[in-house]
C-alpha cells in the first residue's frame, strides 16, 4: 500500500468533490475508505495498492474528470 497526496487546481464547486471522489473509488486497487477530497486546500489524499495500480493512472483519472493536478507526493 502506498499513500498519495495530489495537489489540484483550486476547487470551487462543491459537486467537484463528489465527482472526484466517485471517480477515484471506481479504480481497481484504490483503498476506498482512504479517499479524501479536501475542498479548502484543493487536495486529494488516498492509499492504493501499487501492485495493481499505477500512480499515473490516478492522476489521469482526475485530469479526465476535468481538474488539473499540480503536484503529487508518494509515500
Amino acid at each position, binding site marked *: 500500500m502506498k499513500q498519495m497526496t495530489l495537489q489540484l487546481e483550486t476547487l*470551487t*464547486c462543491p459537486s467537484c*468533490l463528489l465527482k472526484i471522489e466517485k*471517480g477515484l473509488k471506481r479504480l481497481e486497487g484504490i483503498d476506498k475508505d482512504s479517499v479524501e477530497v479536501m*475542498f479548502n*486546500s484543493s*487536495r486529494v489524499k488516498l492509499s492504493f495498492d501499487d501492485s495493481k495500480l499505477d500512480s499515473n493512472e490516478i492522476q489521469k483519472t482526475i485530469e479526465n474528470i*476535468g481538474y488539473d493536478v499540480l503536484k503529487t507526493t508518494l509515500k
Partner: protein
Amino acid sequence: MNTKIIYKHKNHLMLVSLILIVFAFVNYYVTHNKNILEILLMIASIVGLLPILFQAYSALKIKVISIDVLVVLAVLGAFIIKNYEESAIVTFLFLFGSFLEQKTLNHTKKAIKELTDLTPLEAAVLKDGLTVKIPIEEVLVGDLVVVKTGEKVPVDGLIVEGSGYLSEASLTGESIPVSKTLSDQVYASSILDDGHIVIKTTAVLEDTTFGKIIEMVVEAQDKKSRAWQFIDRFSTFYTPVVLIFGLLMGLLTKDLELGVTILVLGCPGALVIGIPVSNVAGIGFGAKHGILFKGSETISDLAKSDVFIFDKTGTLTKGFPEVVEMIAYDSNVDKIKNYYKSLEETQTHPLAKSILNYVGDVSTFEVKDLNVIKGQGIKGYINDKRILLGNQALMDDYQVELSSVLNDIKRFEDKGLSYVILAEEEKVLSVISIGDQLRDNINNDLKRLRQLGVKDTYILSGDNQGAVDKIKDSLNMTQGFGGMLPKDKKAFIDKLVLEGRKVTFIGDGINDAPSLASATIGISIKGGTDVAIETSDVVLMHHDLYHLATAKRLAGKILRNMWQNIIISLLVVIVLLYQVLYNSQMTMSIGMLVHELSILVVILNGMRLLKTNIKEK
C-alpha cells in the same frame, strides 16, 4: 483534449452568451422581430451550455448526478417547450454564478495562500567552493547553504560559518532580531537582518519547523467538525431524495419545467459550501495574526470552553528570574551598580545573570581576593574596602548592621521574591529583589477571558501551595493547586472532562504533554516551535497570553458564522421549494438566480471573518 479547451474558455463563452442575450433583447426592442430574438437566444443557450455539457458528461461517465447534469436537463426541457429566453438566462446565470463563486472563494483562501507563499523557493548552495542557486526541492540534508544580509533562510540548519541578527517573526511573532553565531540553530523563513552566514542543512521543506506550521494550517482547513460532518451526510442523502421528488412531480403534473426546476433548486450548493467557507476564512484570518487552529472541531470546542487551566512557571509567569526592584541606601547609585557588576561578572549563577542584565553596560572595578562562600554569597576587596554580596547569613557572619533594611527584606519575603544584599565594610549599600514575575498584563488577559464567558480559571503547579495561592489571589482565579506532579494535573483535567466540560489547558508543552493531550483543547505557550506544533490544538505564535482571549473570541465568531451559513442555506432551499410548488409566477430563471445568489451570500458572509477586528471589542 477539446474538453480542456472548452474549460479554459469557460469565462469567454459566458461573456459571448451575455453579449448575445443583451444584443437579442436590444435588437427586439428596436425591430420587434421575434424570430431573430429566438434564434439569438437559442445560440446564446448553446454557447453557454457547451462547458456545462462537458462537465455533465464527465460526471455521468462516473455515474454521478451533479448539478451540471441537472442544469443540462433543465435547459433541454426549456428547449423542448421552446422557451429559449429561459434556457439562455439559466445557462448564463449558472456560468456567471460559478465565475463569481470562484473569484470570491479565492479571496477567502487568500490569507492562507499568503502564508504558504512565504515558503522559500530556492537556496544558494555551496558546492566545490562555488555558490549555486538551486530549487529548494533539490537541497539535501547536509548541504551547505549561504545566506546574505536581507535574505530569507531557506532551510533549517546549524551555522557553520559567520554570525548575524535574524528576525524570526514568521515563527515566534517576535519582531526583535536575535543574535546567532557558530553552531546556533536557524530556521527556514527567518530573515537575516544583518551579517553573512553559511549553514549546514538539517531539514528541508515540510520537515522544517516553518514547513510543519504551513502543513498544519493547510490541513486544518478541511478537518471537519461534527456539525460539518452532519451537514455533509445530510447533503449526500438530500440530493437523491430531491431527484426522486422532482421526477415524481414532473411525471404526476406532466409539467416538465416544474420537475426540472425542483431538481436545480434541490442542489444543496450553499449548504455544502457554507461551512467550509467560514472555516477557511476564519482559519486563514487567524493564521495571518499568529493564531493557528488545528481544525474545525477545535474552533467549536474553544468557542464553547468555559474552564481554563494554567500551568504556573513559564505560563502565567515569565519563566526566568528577573530583577524586580533595586533599593539604594546610598546616594551614589552609579557606584552601587559598578559594585554589582564587578562582583557578579565573575559568577555563573542565574541570579547573577539577571542582576547583570539589570545594571546593564556600566564600568567595573578591579576586585581583589575574591572569595565564594558556599550557600551565602561572595566577598572581595575593591579599593581596599571589603565588599559583601549575598544573603542575610553572610551579612550576620561579618557583623553588617541590618536593622535599617529589615522592613524591605520582609516586604520581599512576603511577595515570595529572592533578594541579595550588598554591603561595603559594615554598612548596607543596597538590596536587590529577584523573582520569576507574572507576565505583563496577565491580569487583563484573564479578565478578557472571563468577559468571553470563561467561568473557571485554575492554576496547577509543581511549586509550593504558598506561591500558587499568592498568584491565584492576585489574579482573582477560581482555585490554585500546588505540589502537583504531571500525573496529578492530568487526573484533575480528566475529571473535569468526564463531567462533560470543555477544558482548555495552557502549558509549556514539555513536561505538560499528558495534560495537553487530556484537555479538550491543549495550548502550548511555546510559540511556533516543534513542541508547540506537536502538542497543541491551537498554536499561538506570540509568546504571550494576550492572543489566548483573541483566539477564543475569533473561534466564537467563526462558529457563529458557520451556523449563520447553515441557516441561510436551509432557509433558501425551503423557501424556494415552497415557491416552486405554490407560486405560479416562479420561473426556472428566478430559481437559478436565487440558488446562485444564496451561494454568493454564504461566501460573502464567510468573507466577513476576514475583516474581524482583532483588537479589543
